[in-house]
């Protein structure tokens, strides 16, 4: 006979895995510091790539001027401006990504905890079945 309560729990697990399985369930198991550190590094790398593309576009825009005055450009000043703005970008990106991913971790952790509660409930059904039938190889509802 079909155990309705067990089917409900299994359906809930399947729904959680379908909706959240790819990211939340996988990443909720990380330690908080590891998760935030990994995500911050990835975010800062993405911002670095974007900054490089932005510099490229600005360079193309001023290409005529740069080529005409290549010998007399204040490279030190330009380098300092690029470096300072890059550091500012990195600080803003670092702070923003820390706040964002700290909240994301809490959200993913809650989903993982709910998923584990559902798995515990299902495990309870199997234990109960084992006690009743004395057979731990029985598969089914």
């Amino acid at each position, binding site marked *: 006979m079909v155990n309705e309560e067990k089917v409900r729990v299994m359906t809930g697990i399947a729904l959680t895995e379908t909706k959240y399985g790819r990211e939340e369930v996988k990443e909720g198991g990380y330690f908080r510091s590891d998760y935030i550190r990994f995500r911050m590094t990835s975010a800062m790398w993405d911002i670095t790539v974007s900054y490089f593309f932005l510099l490229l*576009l600005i360079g193309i825009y001023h290409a005529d001027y740069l080529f005409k005055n290549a010998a007399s450009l204040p490279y030190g000043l330009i380098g300092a401006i690029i470096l300072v703005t890059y550091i500012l970008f990195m600080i803003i990106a670092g702070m923003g990504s820390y706040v964002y991913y700290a909240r994301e971790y809490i959200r993913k952790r809650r989903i993982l905890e709910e998923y584990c509660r559902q798995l515990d409930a299902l495990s309870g059904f199997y234990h109960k079945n084992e006690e009743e039938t004395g057979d731990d190889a029985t598969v089914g509802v």
Partner: protein
Amino acid sequence: MTQLLVYRERLIKFYQNHAPVIHALLRFLLGFVSFYALNHIVGYQPELNHWYVEFLLAVVGVILPGSAFIFLLAVFSVVHILYVSSLLAFVVGMLYAILYCSYIKFVPRHGYVIVALPILLYLHLGYAVPICLGLTMTPLAVIPIACGVGVYYLLQTITSVVSTSNDTSISLYQLVLQRFLKNEEMYVVFFVFATVAILVYLVRKRESDYAFEWSIIAGTACSIVLFLVANYAFTIRIGVIAVILGNLASMLAVQVYQFFRLALNYASVENLQFEDEEYYYYVRAVPKISVAEPDKSVKKFSVRRFAENSARAERRKQEDRNQEISTD
């Protein structure tokens, strides 16, 4: 009103029963409209500017996941621009890459807003977007609004510059960027959309009856007033009739969307108060309306059949009586 709610329940049930087919159809329609709009905004590549290409790409879009579909739209627009200037296509590609790496990668859902805005602005339905975002998101929605409006006006600027200039060198890129940054209409549209989104958010957060509905009306009114003021104050050309009609059509569309998203029964509001160890709670509970579809059972009465059945029953009764008499 009850009849509307019954239709709503029926439509929801119909959608639930046929969800995969409806999803596929909707994705196809969205894809077709998107590629159609892009072909009309930057349709330079003659091989791509045909209805069957839009159809085929829309079919491909049904199979692809959402992020891949957005990537396909971006590549489609870059390929069109490549036909007139490879440098411009490179620049637009770089700008898309910057947008992806610095923003869309972290909040992928906003990518759909950034893609939808240029297409809806082209179709004169962009007024619905800030109202929808105000209903469903926080004031941070101004960021995808800014990006979407920027992408639309960048493509418009490219179209206008390319149509008046035969240059393909760096000066074309410089001209495009200068006109883009000096585009007053873009700043006006961004300002109005941002204001509408924030206003809708603030009104719908209030704890009053029909807050969602009032927020939609307030957003529409604000949009119309701001666009009319901007049309008068700045040197931009925005059609007054188009603005008013577009806003009214958007308001209607958003009201329908809100009706299907959340139907609340304000006549049965409950105000509760309770406490726990930490706080004392004041709670206002507004029940959602759920109407059960009436079960109809139609019993057909045919006069002739009714008469025949009655006569047959009478005859049986008579036979039974005759049998009883004969046995007696």
